[in-house]
C-alpha cells in the first residue's frame, strides 16, 4: 500500500464526518489554545517585569536608611540619615560607580494660573545616567549652581505638559513651594514603572532642595550605578562594608542596599514558575482532549468493524489498518493543533490587551504546542488503531 493512499484514506474519513471530526478535535483545540495563551501570558508578564525594572536603571543599587527597628520599651527608632560625607566616601572608596544622593518632597508647583502637586527631587547630575534618563532639551545643573544652591530646575515630561501645555518652558520661572525657580532643562519621557508615573517630577540641585525647601540636610536614599556590567555584587559588598564602618552600627544594619538585578531575578523567577504552573494546568486539558480522541476513535472502530473486516478480507495487512486509523487520529489532532494555535494567538492578544501587557508571540511556544497535539494524536490514536488492526476478520464481518 502506498503512503499517499494511507493519508488520503484518513483525510477522506475526516472530510466525510466534518462535524464529528471537529468535535473530536475540540478538546485538542482548547487544550493547545490554552497552553499557548497561558505560556504567552506568563512570558508577557515576565517581560513586563523585566521592562519595569530596566526602566529604573541598569546595574542600579538603591541604598536607603533602615525603616528603623524598635528600641527599648518598643519606642520606634528612626535610623539616622546619610550625610554628605557618606556620599563622598562612597564616591572615593568604591571603584567604578556613579553616586546620586537624593532628597524627595512633595510640593505645590505653580506656573501662571496652573497649579500642580508634584514630586520634587533634589539630586546631582549623576542621577540621570544612573537611571538611564536623557534630557529632551536644555541642560543639567552647572557646578556653580550645585555649589550655590541655585534656584534652577529640570522638569519631567508630565510636569512640563501640565504646567506649560504647548509653550516653551526653558528660561521660564515656576514656583516650587515658596521659592521660585528657573527651568533650565526638560527630561525625556520615561514612562511608568509598576504603575508609578516617573515623569511627574521636578529635579533640582540637592543643595537647593535641602536649604531652600525642606530645610535640613538629611539624605534618605542614594542611587548608585555600577558603571561596568557584572560588578553590582562587588559594589554591593563594598558599600555594605563601608557604610557599616562609617555608621558604626552595632549588630543590625540600619540601612539596606537593594540590588535591582536581584529584585529582577527574583521577580522573573516567580513569574517563570507561575508560567510553568499555568502551562501545566493547560496541558491537563490537552490530555483530556487526547482522551476525547481515543474515545471517539474507539467508537468509530466499533462502528466500522464490518468495513475493517472487509478490508482485511480483501488483503489489507495488519499494519495497513493500523496506519489508516493512526493517521486518522493524528490528522484530527494535528488539525486541532493548528486551530488551537490560532485560538491561542487570539486568546493571547485579547488577554494581553486587557491586562496591558506586551503582545509577544514565541514561535517556540507555538511549535511546542503543535508538537504536543501531534504526540497526543499518536499516543491516544494508537490504542484504537491497534484494536482495529487486530480484529478477527470473521467476527468483524459478522458484526451487526
Amino acid at each position, binding site marked *: 500500500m502506498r503512503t499517499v493512499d494511507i493519508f488520503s484514506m484518513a483525510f477522506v474519513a475526516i472530510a466525510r464526518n466534518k462535524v464529528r471530526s471537529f468535535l473530536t478535535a475540540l478538546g485538542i483545540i482548547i487544550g493547545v489554545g490554552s497552553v499557548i495563551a497561558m505560556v504567552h501570558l506568563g512570558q508577557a508578564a515576565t517581560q513586563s517585569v523585566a521592562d519595569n525594572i530596566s526602566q529604573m536603571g541598569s546595574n542600579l543599587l538603591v541604598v536607603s536608611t533602615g525603616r528603623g527597628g524598635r528600641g527599648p520599651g518598643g519606642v520606634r527608632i528612626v535610623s539616622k540619615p546619610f550625610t554628605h560625607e557618606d556620599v563622598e566616601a562612597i564616591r572615593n572608596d568604591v571603584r567604578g560607580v556613579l553616586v546620586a544622593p537624593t532628597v524627595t518632597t512633595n510640593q505645590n508647583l505653580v506656573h501662571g494660573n496652573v497649579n500642580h502637586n508634584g514630586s520634587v527631587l533634589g539630586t546631582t547630575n549623576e542621577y540621570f545616567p544612573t537611571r538611564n534618563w536623557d534630557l529632551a532639551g536644555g541642560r543639567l545643573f552647572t557646578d556653580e549652581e550645585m555649589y550655590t544652591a541655585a534656584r534652577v530646575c529640570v522638569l519631567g515630561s508630565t510636569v512640563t505638559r501640565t504646567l506649560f501645555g504647548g509653550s516653551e518652558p526653558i528660561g521660564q520661572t515656576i514656583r516650587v513651594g515658596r521659592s521660585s525657580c528657573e527651568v533650565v532643562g526638560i527630561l525625556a519621557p520615561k514612562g511608568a514603572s509598576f504603575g508609578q508615573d516617573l515623569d511627574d517630577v521636578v529635579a533640582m540641585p540637592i543643595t537647593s532642595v535641602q536649604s531652600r525647601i525642606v530645610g535640613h540636610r538629611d539624605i534618605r536614599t542614594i542611587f548608585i550605578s555600577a558603571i561596568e556590567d557584572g560588578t553590582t555584587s562587588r559594589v554591593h559588598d563594598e558599600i555594605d562594608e563601608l557604610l557599616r564602618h562609617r555608621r558604626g552600627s552595632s549588630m543590625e544594619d540600619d540601612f539596606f542596599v537593594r540590588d535591582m538585578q536581584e529584585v529582577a531575578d527574583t521577580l522573573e523567577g516567580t513569574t517563570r514558575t507561575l508560567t510553568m504552573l499555568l502551562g501545566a494546568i493547560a496541558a491537563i486539558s490537552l490530555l483530556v482532549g487526547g482522551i476525547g480522541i481515543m474515545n471517539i476513535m474507539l467508537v468509530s472502530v466499533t462502528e466500522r468493524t464490518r468495513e475493517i473486516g472487509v478490508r482485511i*478480507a*480483501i*488483503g*489489507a495487512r495488519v499494519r*495497513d489498518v493500523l496506519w489508516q486509523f493512526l493517521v486518522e487520529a493524528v490528522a484530527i489532532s494535528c488539525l486541532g493543533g493548528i486551530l488551537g494555535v490560532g485560538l491561542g494567538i487570539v486568546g493571547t492578544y485579547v488577554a494581553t490587551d486587557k491586562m496591558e501587557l506586551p503582545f509577544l508571540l514565541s514561535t517556540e511556544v507555538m511549535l511546542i504546542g503543535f508538537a504536543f497535539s501531534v504526540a497526543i494524536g499518536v499516543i491516544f490514536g494508537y490504542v484504537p488503531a491497534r484494536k482495529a488492526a487486530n480484529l478477527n476478520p*470473521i467476527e468483524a464481518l459478522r458484526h451487526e
Partner: protein
Amino acid sequence: MTAIVDVRGIKKIYGHGNTEVRALDGVDFQVQPGEFVAVMGPSGSGKSTCMNIVGCLDPPSAGRYHFCGLDIARFNRDELAMLRRHYLAFVFQSFNLIPRTTALENVALPLVYQGVKPAERNARALRALASVGIAERADHTPSELSGGQQQRVAIARALVTEPTLLLADEPTGNLDTATTEEVLHLLKQLNHERDLTILLVTHEPEVALHTQRVLWFVDGKLVNDGTPDEVLS
C-alpha cells in the same frame, strides 16, 4: 495439474469440554482449476467455516490445506494477507460494500492495498464494473444502489484483482429470484470465459443446478460429493 484447493482431514473445533463444537470434523476434497462448485447442507453444517478456511481468513484446528500447492500452515499473517490480496476474492451475502464510498472506489479498494497507482486503479475498476454491466453507476454510493446492483459491484470488486479463486458465501441469499438469476448468469459467464474457479455456498437447489459439482455437508462432515443431479436427487 495442481489442485486450486486441496484440503485433507480439516477440522475446526470451537470451545472445549462440554461446550465443544465441531464446526468441521475431518473434511477432504479437492477443487481443480476452472471448476464451479456449490457448497450445500443444512444450517450450521460448517459451510461458512469451510469457506473461511479456504479463504485463508481462519486457520484450521487440524488437517492440511494446500492452496495451489502451497502449504498454508507455513504462512504468517502478512503472507496470508498477500494471498488474499492477489489470488483470492470474496463475495458476501450482505454485499459488504464500504458505505458512503462510490462504486468505483469500492471496486478499486483491493488495488489500493496492492499499491497500484490511482490512474491505473480507476481504469481497471471501471473495466471491472463494465464487465458486470454496471459501469454507468460508478459514481453512486451503495445506499443509492439496489441489492442486485450492490452485489454486482461486489463481484466487480472481487474480479478487479483477477483472482485465482472466487469464494461466494450465499451471494444470492438477499436477492429476489430474478436478480438471483442475473447474478448466477454472471458467475457462470465468468467461470466460462475467464476459467475462474468458483466456490459458492447456497441453500437453493435451483442455484446449485447452475454449477458443475455439489459438496454436501452435514454436521461438519462432507457426506456427498458429485454432480448436482446426483447429489440433489
